[in-house]
């Protein structure tokens, strides 16, 4: 069964998501990858305002391709998430509720997901042309000079993702791999 969810995410909504659920996300989400994360955390540590409200927010780890004429955005699939791990626990502590990326997270992130009641979604890496169809609008809201790494505000409709890590400590990567392993 596919669940339709809308941002910003609430505690209640997150509590209803379980590793393995397929979801379609609609609403506003923000892009951020390596350098943007570094800057967000630097801003937080320095007590400065962030370019967007973290409360209930979803960050999509993506550095999109440039928008061709007539499209809001170019191809936009997920990038590998573990590179954001050093910055993630602080963002979760400050209210971040959802992350969309690909690949396994480190223990500190898994612990913070449980502690601060958040959720980690996987989108299909390399399905960038398909995924960009669910992005209806995009605008750069910070760090424009970082090019593909700038922070963008995206309006998404039925953005396809899969719940990997939930607040109950289940991890679909572990569970799925164990199920099909034949060694």
């Amino acid at each position, binding site marked *: 069964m596919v669940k339709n969810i809308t941002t910003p995410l609430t505690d209640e909504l997150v509590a209803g998501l379980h590793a393995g659920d397929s979801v379609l996300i609609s609403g506003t989400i923000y892009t951020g990858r390596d350098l943007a994360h570094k800057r967000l955390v630097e801003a937080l540590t320095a007590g400065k305002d962030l370019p967007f409200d973290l409360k209930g927010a979803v960050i999509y780890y993506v550095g*999109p391709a440039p928008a061709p004429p007539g499209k809001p955005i170019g191809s936009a699939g997920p*990038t590998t998430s573990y590179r954001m791990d050093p910055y993630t626990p602080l963002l979760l502590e400050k209210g971040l509720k959802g992350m969309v990326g690909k*690949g396994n997270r480190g223990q500190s992130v898994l612990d913070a997901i449980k502690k601060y009641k958040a959720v980690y979604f*996987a989108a299909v890496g390399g399905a960038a*042309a398909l995924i*960009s169809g669910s992005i209806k609008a995009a605008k750069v809201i910070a760090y424009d000079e970082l090019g593909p790494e700038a922070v963008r505000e995206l309006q998404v409709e039925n953005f396809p993702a899969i719940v990997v890590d939930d607040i109950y400590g289940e991890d679909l990567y572990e569970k799925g791999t164990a199920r*099909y392993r034949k*060694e």
Partner: protein
Amino acid sequence: MKEIPFETVKDTVAKLCMDANFDIGDDIIDALKHAVEIEESPTGKDILKQILENDRISHEEKVAACQDTGFAVFWVEIGSELRISGGELYDAIKQGVVKGYKEGYLRKSIVEDPLRRKNTGDNTPPIIYTDIVPGDKLKITVQPKGGGAENMSEVKMLTPADGAEGFKDFVVDRVRRSKANPCPPVIVGAAIGGTFEKCAMLAKKAQLRKVGSVHPDPFYADMEKELLERINNLGIGPQGLGGRVTALAVFVEAFPCHIATMPCAVNMCCHASRHKTAIL
């Protein structure tokens, strides 16, 4: 001596960069279709179908199959009886990359310095490997290489005593530890022999082979089969969410080596394995 105009090389390179990113090879599409048939995990099947649909959209709408349009890596064979008129070959390739990545709306993913990390803005410089060959042809292959799979790659200096088992275990273990990160199903480029750097290059070049092709040396053909089976028994599956199909192919390259050494390398590539060739 044959002359090839600078502009011809530049335009050819620009087109290759775009074609590579818009057109996932038929060999991979066929392998993905077969994977849908044999995948046991429902989530895995679904993901494989999404990838096929993605590759169709990319081809039809001429948009990048993956947003990570990669480091532009080139393998160039230069016939000894040709010269480039009106400029240098390296410049022509570089300018072709600038043009192709601009006109194709491909992502610019290169930073000027690995520590200071300022984007160069035009996806240059490319990485160019050249071979001088007999004849008057210029063969250019582009292999845009994304960062996610590249990060899961490794060179390891095993010793001769480690033998075939050591090499195979190294390859399988590298895939095991990569888990979901290189966007499985993957194409595994593995190499053994040569020197430290030669081995790494061969592992990357191995990915240019057609998925479904058989190694000409039966010894390595058997090894590739065995490795593919072992890797697909890891259970990692499409996108690492569990399943039967972790790799679409394993390609092994071997090269003579020193009596004291046994370099081994694995270069991982995702299902979006892109490469295109032109001969001028």
